[in-house]
């Protein structure tokens, strides 16, 4: 298994590596500007992010050593471990701003909901791979993957972290739609999903969460309250105009009008300082990674690789879309980082690990099973 074939090196995914490096450099460049207002804090954020990148690239190397198909064997133990981490975050986690999301490891504060997203991709890929699709899944056959999704979902909802929990559902839906479903199953799922919406709205959402969503549809109603993030972000992005205000010259970011500018709203800073041209360049680089990921899915040598690659692409893509939609005022504020770009160790390491798996699949596309 650890025997390293020469062919592996030949088929190393340089394209993905270069693309990820470019986005990583853009991210660091942007973070340096976004965090520059707070002198001491900014430096430490910047340095930390560099460490996370280095750690992430080491993780990619480690992941490349091992054939991705072992994940079909390891998926259940890894899944159980993830559930334990989520439970630990709930019971022993450190509370930040009223939420229990972090486990303090001393040198690093792990946010287990981030690897949980990747874990869900792996476990679903492995389940759908092992289950023969045949004429399409029936609703009954979907109960196990639904259960696998619901457990981490519930634990993340409990933290509470609405955005990440929502991602769990989105991953499940994306991957389930990707494999073959019976039409009746699809209809049942849609029915259940829709009927849950009002229940969740009425009984589950906390007032501030409801407020955020309502504010989204009418942001002018509360320009200094819930709508503040959206309004300031739109001003930041819009005021970048064609060519931007220039690096480190974004007034929205530099004068502290823009909240969470090194995490969720990192792209606002980019768009303000680099304008439409810079934003297009960024989107081109970023979505190249995603499309390349889909290409990896297309060229994978087996169904597991296809499912896994597709799941990972879905994971990165939906997060990016939700984040960008929020930054551009198309979607409500839910607290979602832009993978690879926003500051944050757990998200970055998870994303790089996911990229590592993609590269792994790519590298082994010519290998046949023994």
């Amino acid at each position: 298994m650890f025997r390293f074939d020469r062919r592996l090196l030949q088929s190393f995914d340089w394209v993905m590596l270069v693309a990820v490096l470019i986005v990583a450099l853009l991210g660091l460049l942007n973070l340096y500007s976004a965090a520059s207002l707070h002198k001491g804090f900014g430096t430490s954020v910047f340095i930390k992010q560099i460490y996370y990148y280095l750690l992430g690239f080491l993780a990619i190397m480690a992941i490349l050593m091992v054939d991705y198909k072992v994940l079909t064997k390891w998926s259940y133990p890894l899944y159980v471990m993830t559930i334990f981490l989520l439970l630990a975050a709930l019971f022993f986690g450190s509370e930040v701003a009223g939420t229990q999301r972090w486990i303090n490891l001393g040198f690093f504060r792990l946010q287990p909901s981030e690897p949980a997203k990747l874990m869900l991709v792996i476990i679903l890929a492995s389940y759908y791979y092992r289950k023969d699709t045949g004429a399409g899944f029936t609703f009954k056959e979907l109960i196990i993957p639904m259960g696998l999704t619901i457990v981490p979902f519930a634990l993340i909802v409990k933290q509470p972290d609405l955005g990440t929990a929502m991602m769990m559902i989105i991953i499940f839906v994306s991957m389930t739609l990707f494999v073959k479903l019976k039409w009746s199953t699809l209809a049942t799922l849609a029915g259940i999903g829709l009927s849950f919406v009002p229940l969740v709205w009425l009984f589950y959402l906390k007032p501030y969460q409801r407020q955020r969503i309502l504010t989204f549809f009418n942001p002018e109603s509360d320009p200094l309250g819930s709508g503040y993030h959206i309004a300031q972000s739109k001003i930041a992005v819009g005021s970048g105009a064609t060519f931007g205000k220039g690096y480190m010259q974004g007034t929205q970011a530099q004068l502290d009008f823009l909240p969470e500018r090194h995490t969720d709203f990192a792209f606002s800073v980019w768009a303000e300082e680099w304008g439409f041209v810079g934003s297009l360049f960024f989107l081109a680089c970023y979505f190249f990674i995603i499309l390349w990921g889909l290409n990896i899915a297309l060229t994978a040598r087996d169904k597991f690789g296809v499912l896994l690659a597709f799941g990972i692409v879905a994971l990165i893509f939906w997060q990016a879309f939700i984040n960008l939609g929020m930054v551009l005022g198309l979607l409500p504020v839910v607290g979602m980082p832009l993978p690879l770009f926003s500051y944050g160790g757990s998200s970055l390491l998870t994303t790089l690990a996911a990229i590592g798996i993609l590269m792994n699949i790519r590298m082994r596309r010519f290998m046949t099973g023994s």
Partner: protein
Amino acid sequence: MLRPVGNITKMDPAELKMLKKRTDAATAIIFFIVAILVLRLWHLQIQQGGEYLQRSESNRIRVQQLAAPRGNLVDRHGQTLVTNRPRFNVIWIREDAPHPDEVIRQLARILELDISELLDRIRAGADQPRFIPTRLKEDIDWRTLVQIENNSFNLPGVQIEVQPSRNYLHGNLASHLVGYLGEINQRELEMFRHQDYRAGDPIGKMGLERLFETYLRGEKGRSYVEVDVRGFAQKQLQIQEPLPGNDLQLTLDLQMQKVAEEGLRDAAGAVVAMEVNSGRLLVMASAPELPVESFVGGIPRALWQGLLDDRRAPLLNKPVQGQYAPGSTYKVITTLAALEEEVITPETSFQCNGSIIFQGRRYHCWQRRGHGQVKLRQAMAESCDVYFYYLGQRLGVDTLAKYARLMGLGQKTEIVLEHEKEGLVPTAEWKRQRHREPWQDGETLSVSIGQGFNLATPLQITRMTAAVANGGRFYRPKLVSAIIDPEGEVVQELQPEPEREVGEVSNESWELLREILVASVMDQRATGRSARIKDITVAGKTGTSQVVRLSQIEHFEEDEIPYHLRDHAWFTAYAPAEKPEVAVTVLVEHGGSGGAVAAPLAKAVLEAYFRQQEDPTLPATAEQKQQDEE
């Protein structure tokens, strides 16, 4: 059918085709969504970019507090004593100053300040964001203001800030009473944390400014201002006007107060004038004055240290905080006690040879030649000490103390002012406890002429005199008669507070006492004769309280006695004698004799009172008339 774990085979072509189709669909979805994002970016940045650029230039709404005009202090006739005026401060905004060195050099020249002083101030504000102004100089005069405004083009980053502050229309008049404002401190912020105070706000630190803070301060306003990206105000959005504070109508009479303070100029001491039938105070003067005008915008350290070091104690509000031996004004109490205790009749006479020997010690009369054979009336009028030594011997210290207490000595008057002193009425018991020594009978002699351990405040002596004038009724001294809202409506009227009536003293005694107090001013050789007023009968008593024993200053000629060893001069009086209205007490520290120094000032204050009664709008003196006309 489950595939075996770990044993991955190539996909069958049909399944591969299906997944490929779905991947293509996913690619289409992704392109579609990216197109939406790009369109959105186009819309925000290209189509609306200019508009958003403007909005980012004038972005945030800032809430500014608007200081409320503080209530005025007006006198009993409605004449304003203290009001507000705008104060102009020079402020510095770093963000706006591209060439600070040159600007600071110019500014230092205009402000006549050292560059290093300006730099110190700028450095002190260096931690704050660049758009937050730093104050460089407070309260510049209008000439400087004009200079800065004219040069504003050459002084980028320099601005003028307008701040309301206290305006003392009559200088430091009644300064101890008015008190002053200062920046709120940590303790006060803590104390008033439920009220709308913020660091940097002014708050009353002393006197009425402090005691009536809640009435005077008003309510702050709010101004909602849109600020631009550098933090500068761009657009006024909404203003909630501040609510001015309530005015205080004082019981003081400005003209009388002026006369009193003129009289105390260059001296140290106190003048108190009070309505005998209400306890309302017409004059509360303390000298030297407190330079409250120089306190606006912060008390300079050197000035404060100078006030602390001044041996004339300008920080004391002497009418209530100064304690002095009452001297011969105390003879009012000795007389009252002697009449009531019937140790003498008005006809009882004693021989005064200038001194008596008691228990082997000699006790002098102020009149070294002696008064000869004197009765009560003459003894009081000419302030014969020997006569009162005999009374003291017959009464004993504890009986004297009883009457002193009846007349309000040795206890606070409960006036609404800070740090009121209660004075001291000595008794045998007090001395045993305080000094662990038995009372010496010789000490009773000193007490009976108001010397020795006796201590009283000028306000206490005024109340005593007022009580003699009105037949033993005591009122709580009042300084504020009404609280008036900004529309001129009286919010609260402060009525006189009768405290107690001295029932133990017979009417005959009161009348007799009043008679001999009239004699003390009106008799030919009366010590208080310089307090006489045309057409009005004044009743009063002089006092000269020794600061040191006579023997210590015997070797000095009278005008050579060092200042701090000179006697305190007292005079306390009421008028008109037939139908008393007003009581006045004057104390001049180290002024010499009461008759020569204090009585003329009391006379001037009384004259001012009667002039005001005729026409309250009349200026008190010719000099002031001239000033007012200017």
